[in-house]
């Protein structure tokens, strides 16, 4: 029935790292600006901060029936606890994007296409704001996988972040894209194989 490309992404980390917003931005970029279909779900515990929370986005040309991820194509993890908890759902050959400093123990072997980027540190040192690490990560995800177009992502970020922080966030996004470009030189990704 379904012959369109379907991409499953999971953004994982602790409460307060902005991954719920990250999921919304990716879904909005796909729907409003890339003219695709998307579904965003989240699961969370009782804590508003800390713990392991996840936000999932499915992007497709077709109708999306089951709204949760079944075989994850792309996993972002911003802390070790989430990485340990959610790595098992990442499909073989899937893309694993980690915060280099906050996930000190990446999986061994070459089962996944692993990218280690210091999102939090980049946000701190280049922009002086740790809280935009999520946006840096979105830039890197899109830069590495083309899951949404850059124009769409920039519009979606500007529309969703607090008024007055648009410029900061667009800069954060650009840092993510820059890091992705660097990483792709060392480690090319076959985005067509992602479906």
């Amino acid at each position, binding site marked *: *029935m*379904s012959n369109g490309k379907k991409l499953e992404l999971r953004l994982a980390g602790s409460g307060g790292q902005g991954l719920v917003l990250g999921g*919304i931005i990716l*879904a*909005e970029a796909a*729907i*409003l600006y890339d003219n695709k*279909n*998307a*579904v*965003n*779900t*989240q*699961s*969370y*515990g*009782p804590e508003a901060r800390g713990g392991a929370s996840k936000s999932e986005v499915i992007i497709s040309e077709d109708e*999306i*029936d*089951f*709204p*949760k991820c*079944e075989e994850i194509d792309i996993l972002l993890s911003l802390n070790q606890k989430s990485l340990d908890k959610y790595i098992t759902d990442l499909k073989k050959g899937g893309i694993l994007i980690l915060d280099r400093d906050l996930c000190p123990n990446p999986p061994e072997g070459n089962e996944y296409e692993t990218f280690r980027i210091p999102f939090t540190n980049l946000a701190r040192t280049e922009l002086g704001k740790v809280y935009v690490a999520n946006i840096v990560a979105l830039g890197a995800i899109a830069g590495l996988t083309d899951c949404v177009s850059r124009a769409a992502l920039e519009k979606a970020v500007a529309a969703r972040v607090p008024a007055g922080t648009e410029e900061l966030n667009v800069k954060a996004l650009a840092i993510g894209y820059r890091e992705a470009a660097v990483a792709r030189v060392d480690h090319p990704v076959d985005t067509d194989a992602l479906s």
Partner: protein
Amino acid sequence: MSGPKFKSGLRLMSGNEAVAEAALYAGCRFFAGYPITPSTEIAEVLSKRLPQVGGFFLQMEDEIASMAATLGASLAGAKSMTATSGPGFSLKQENIGYGCIAEIPCVVVNVQRGGPSTGIPTGPMQGDIMQARWGTHGDHPVIVLYPDGVEDAFWETIRAFNLAERYRTPVILLTDEVIGHMRERMFLPKPGTVSIYNRRKPRRIPEKYYPYQGGTQDVPTMAPYGEGYRFHVTGLFHDRTGFPTNEPAEIDAEMRRLLRKISRAYNDIVKWEELFMDDAEEVIVAFGCTARSARAAVKRLRARDRKVGLFRLKTVWPFPERALIKIAKRAHVKKMLVPEMNNGQVLFEVERVAGRYCDVEGLQRLDSEMITPRQIIRALREN
């Protein structure tokens, strides 16, 4: 409905947001609620949006008061709504019963979470199917709708208001944590393009108005308080004047009319969706978020030439039994599978209705996680 207050077009919305926005399209101008996960966003959205359209939002002291204020506002002429989840739905039952016997239109949203009791506030389950039907004491009519996604939640909310107004009764809109919190594409219609039903007001002069005279459809006309009709409303059994009665014959007449006004409107109220049903040998009967899993399973199995179909309940109560009996009687229908995130509440109904014509099997999950398409496919393969 003024233009700038309704922004039509494509949006990414959660189910809870869609319910709130749809209420405004339907003409809801009063909401009373109490914060509870996972329904809180409905209250949050309406606390901001209702005043923008000239309506009123009240956060009450508890769930009971929220239901009471919702009924009071409706008696004063407003379309009104409240929203809650499991424990709050339990607390609302007393006044839901009042709404049934006093015939007060309103919409009660229950975004289901895991239970009983506090259960799991942040996880979905579908355990309130029977409570929605039988939660308040005594025999009473009930209309319960259950959408399966954000867009459907929007349109079913509007349908809930229309049915409440048409049949002068509380309508329960069941969703679940998945539907409430998931975000997907929603195309908001242009204001004024949505079909809206408003309660029939009396045409008779106040001296000749009987607030509980059924008329041809068994649905009495409804005057709002404060407009010259000085009538009485009570939760006691009453005659057509609205005043209490202890007469067995009058009690019987009232009870039968109350039940009849819903049962006779079966065709208007009971809606469902069919997918690949024409030649289906195996039928999945599903609802709410589980219908999403079932839809995925059916499409995957059809791709492998398995003759599987989906029957999705849009109206849970009254139960779509006439439609299901017809399907169960088809010669090619061998089996019905009922996946649900409870211990078989709808399975019992499907067994009752279709059990003598085909096999009926259940698939239950009680761990607050969604039933996956794979689980459904596996269940069909095993059987």
